[in-house]
């Protein structure tokens, strides 16, 4: 993608000279570094409820964020008007974080390196609404057809197409076009007038619309949601207290996101407020555990060609055979810690200051057969799907809420149990991983991660694992 062909040059008439002069303005008070983050975002969503397509919406927003770094300080301003005067004004406001004469007077921007992880010709956002509306109609029909006990279905399809451009005072100019699509389905089941139960499924990625035809169809997600709701009709009380927990493959990888991922974000470690602070090189998990954060997996929801600071994403080893190896870095923390950026600087939009974030976080496969892992547990809980999770990075306590789980009795998966939250401590929990399956799976593409009120799409993955000790928050 060339700057001269980008939407910023063609539609908004922004020139290289403009960018260079805005950066000079941003550093006019003596800051060490400045960047401009331009965003042009198209969004669409369609929803069906009671078999009626009740809503279809589209939106367009644009803006630029100007950031100035001066030592540990950050100045930030943004504008939703891309005229040169308004950008210059924002640059002037951001510049005020520094105090002194300008140290840099000339920039020459060169286009930077980036991956090509989502070579999507026509983004879903660019297709006809008539095609996309079929996805929610099909999901609705399939969920209802799955079983007569399904009595409510809602499906939401949403996509966006984000054009970004980052220009930095290091002289790097990067452009990216980021498509993203997601279909999610909620089904409610009821039996003999009893209380309803809910099931949920969804997925997508940085894909073309044909993904929902060739790879994961609306019927696939609909049946999953309906199946989960039906399973829950037979759920018994969840157990309470410490026990052996087996996590199924895929989405339960949210464990890694909460237990170790957030605690390894460099900002918390630079400030020494994370439970993982100063623990690099120490054992924080059993030797069976190798945890990766990889922003370079093709078409994945959590992947990016470049991060939101214009740095190419990469594969980062967080934990290797149980030993803590590294943090997720952004520009500010890496320069203050004397380390390299890891392509982890992300932000929700031009209105937000970037910070270290995860991309796709997963555990490498081990050697155990999943059946053997379940067979090894005399009494425990088998969790296959989760709602959200949360962590207190300072004391390391994390939770994640099981939405589909089963009792394991004498090595066999038996009855489904009601929703229960699992709780553990980040630097301790993975030390109890005693078996890792050979069935690594990534989630289907629905994750959203929130940090300091900024939400970004992420992915997780995990093989079947056995954790010998974890606290389960049931009532029985």
């Amino acid at each position, binding site marked *: 993608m060339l700057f001269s062909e980008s939407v910023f040059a063609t539609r908004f008439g922004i020139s290289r000279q403009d960018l260079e002069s805005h950066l000079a303005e941003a550093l006019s008070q003596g800051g060490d570094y400045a960047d401009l983050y331009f965003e042009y975002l198209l969004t669409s969503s369609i929803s069906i409820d009671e078999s009626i397509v009740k809503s279809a919406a589209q939106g367009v927003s644009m803006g630029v964020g100007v950031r100035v770094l001066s030592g540990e300080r950050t100045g930030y301003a943004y504008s939703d008007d891309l005229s040169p005067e308004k950008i210059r004004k924002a640059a002037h*406001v951001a510049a005020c974080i520094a105090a002194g004469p300008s140290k840099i007077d000339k920039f020459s921007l060169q286009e930077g390196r980036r991956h090509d992880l989502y070579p999507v010709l026509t983004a879903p956002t660019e297709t006809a609404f008539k095609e996309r509306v079929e996805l929610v109609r099909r999901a609705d029909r399939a969920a209802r057809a799955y079983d007569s006990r399904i009595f*409510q279905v809602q499906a939401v399809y949403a996509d966006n197409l984000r054009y970004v451009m980052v220009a930095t005072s290091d002289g790097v100019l990067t452009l990216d076009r980021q498509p993203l699509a997601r279909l999610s389905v909620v089904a409610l089941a009821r039996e003999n007038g009893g209380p309803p*139960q809910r099931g949920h499924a969804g997925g997508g990625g940085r894909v073309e619309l044909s993904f929902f035809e060739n790879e994961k169809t609306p019927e696939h997600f609909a049946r999953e949601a309906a199946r989960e709701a039906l399973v829950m009709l037979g759920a018994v009380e969840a157990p309470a207290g410490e026990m052996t927990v087996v996590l199924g493959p895929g989405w339960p990888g949210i464990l890694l996101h909460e237990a170790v991922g957030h605690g390894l974000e460099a900002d918390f470690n630079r400030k020494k407020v994370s439970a993982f602070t100063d623990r690099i090189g120490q054992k924080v998990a059993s030797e069976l555990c190798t945890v990766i954060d990889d922003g370079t997996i093709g078409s994945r929801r959590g992947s990016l060609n470049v991060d939101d600071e214009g740095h190419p994403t990469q594969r980062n080893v967080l934990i290797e055979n149980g030993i803590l190896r590294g943090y997720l870095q952004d520009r500010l923390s890496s320069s203050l810690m004397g380390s390299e950026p890891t392509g982890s600087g992300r932000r929700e939009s031009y209105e937000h200051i970037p910070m270290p974030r995860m991309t796709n976080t997963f555990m490498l496969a081990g050697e155990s057969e999943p059946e053997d892992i379940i067979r090894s547990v005399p009494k425990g809980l088998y969790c296959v799907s989760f709602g959200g999770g949360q962590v207190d990075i300072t*004391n390391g*306590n994390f939770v994640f*809420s099981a939405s589909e789980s089963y009792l394991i009795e004498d090595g066999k998966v038996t009855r489904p149990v009601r*929703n229960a939250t699992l*709780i553990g401590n980040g630097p301790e929990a993975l030390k109890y991983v005693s078996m890792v399956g050979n069935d690594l799976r990534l989630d289907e593409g629905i994750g959203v991660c929130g940090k300091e009120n900024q939400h970004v799409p992420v992915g997780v993955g995990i093989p079947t694992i056995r954790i010998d000790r974890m606290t*389960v928050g049931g009532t029985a």
Partner: protein
Amino acid sequence: MSANHLLELALDVVKRALASGATDAECTVAEGEEFSANVRLRELESLKEAGSRGAGVRILVGTKTGSSSTSDLSPEGIERLVKSAIELADVTNEDPHAGLPEPGEMGTVSGDLRLFSSDVAELETERKIAAAKSAEEAALSADPRIFNSEGASFDTHIGRHVFANSRGFAAEYRTSYCSLSAVPVARDGESMERDYWDSLARGFAGLEAPEQVGREAARRALRRLHPVKVETQKVPVVFDPRVARGLLGSIFEAVHGMSVYRHQSFLAGKLGEKVASDQMTVIDDGTIPGLFGTSPFDDEGVPSRRTVVIERGVLKNYLLNCYAARKLGMKTTGNASRGLTGNAGIGHGNFYLEKGVKRPEQILAAIPNGFYVTQVQGFGVNVVTGDYSQGASGLWIRNGELAFPVSEVTIAANLKEMLLGLDEIGTDLEFRGSVAAPTLKVGEMTVGGK
């Protein structure tokens, strides 16, 4: 842009929509200015300042709807906005319940609701930074064990909200708020804990003193040091007001009209029934001057009002917008809520649990063995079934007193039983946000631990 200008813009969008084939239209325009200063370890860490605006339109063609939004308020941007909403009505279905409020339903609350305080806009940057510095300083100097800080922040927001529709409604209001917060980190030996405290107000004058914010944050962080994981057991659980607010949030989700008509709530179909203990009265009131859930009209142009949700344990009303009201054969309660675009959802005004008769100390004093929860973690509340299971930390209650800190445990029960078993309510109701609750006690929950 001036108030008049934005109101004209909204009316113009409505007019254009009707001229383009819409049978009804509604337009929201929002404008905001935000400021944020963070200090950390006595130094300024970041400053952020900016303004933005946007417009959204929802149109009906008969009973089919389409919506769009834009941050491009140029004439071309507005033209595209209207055109794309009209196009979208083509892909949606006829929905007999869709539509705008009836003429008699629209209007605004009269009188000054005190949503805007000019001192927020006039405040100098230096004073905002100084307030954050004072709050952090008070936390850092509270105790030698406060060894670090995630900082303190001073944030302000000034907004203007405009709404117009094709049934003749057009009005606007301004809002302001400022907030001060501190997040100190305490350490003692191997144990490290953080906590926060904040104060929110419509105007600068309404904020708690920075020193008070910092000291309270420090007190909360310090009392969490060296926590114990207790044995799994069933005990009475006391929620401090901050955590009780979260429980009220779950009750709101359960009386949310959209969840009710979809049978996605354990309170669906229970109007007039006893769903909570006799002591429990829950109110939604969007008209209390100066509070955070207050507004003159909702996002469909219906006046805000006071609605009794639960009265002495009996479920009296759901919270509704026009759509949910039509689905349920009821009248809107003026609780429509939306962003710039899309069909209206449902929000709350000031949603609160009326205060009880006992001071928090009196509630604790009567408990021989129990758990005082000061923080919950996670998303383990299912309003379809009422199943409640959250991570929790707090202090253990022994013989009526707070004995030692507890963490890495869960609390679980079903909301149906929790509401019926809510047997003590404190006198300490404070509006620190748009959801408020005093200290409350639930007779029995399962604490999951060792």
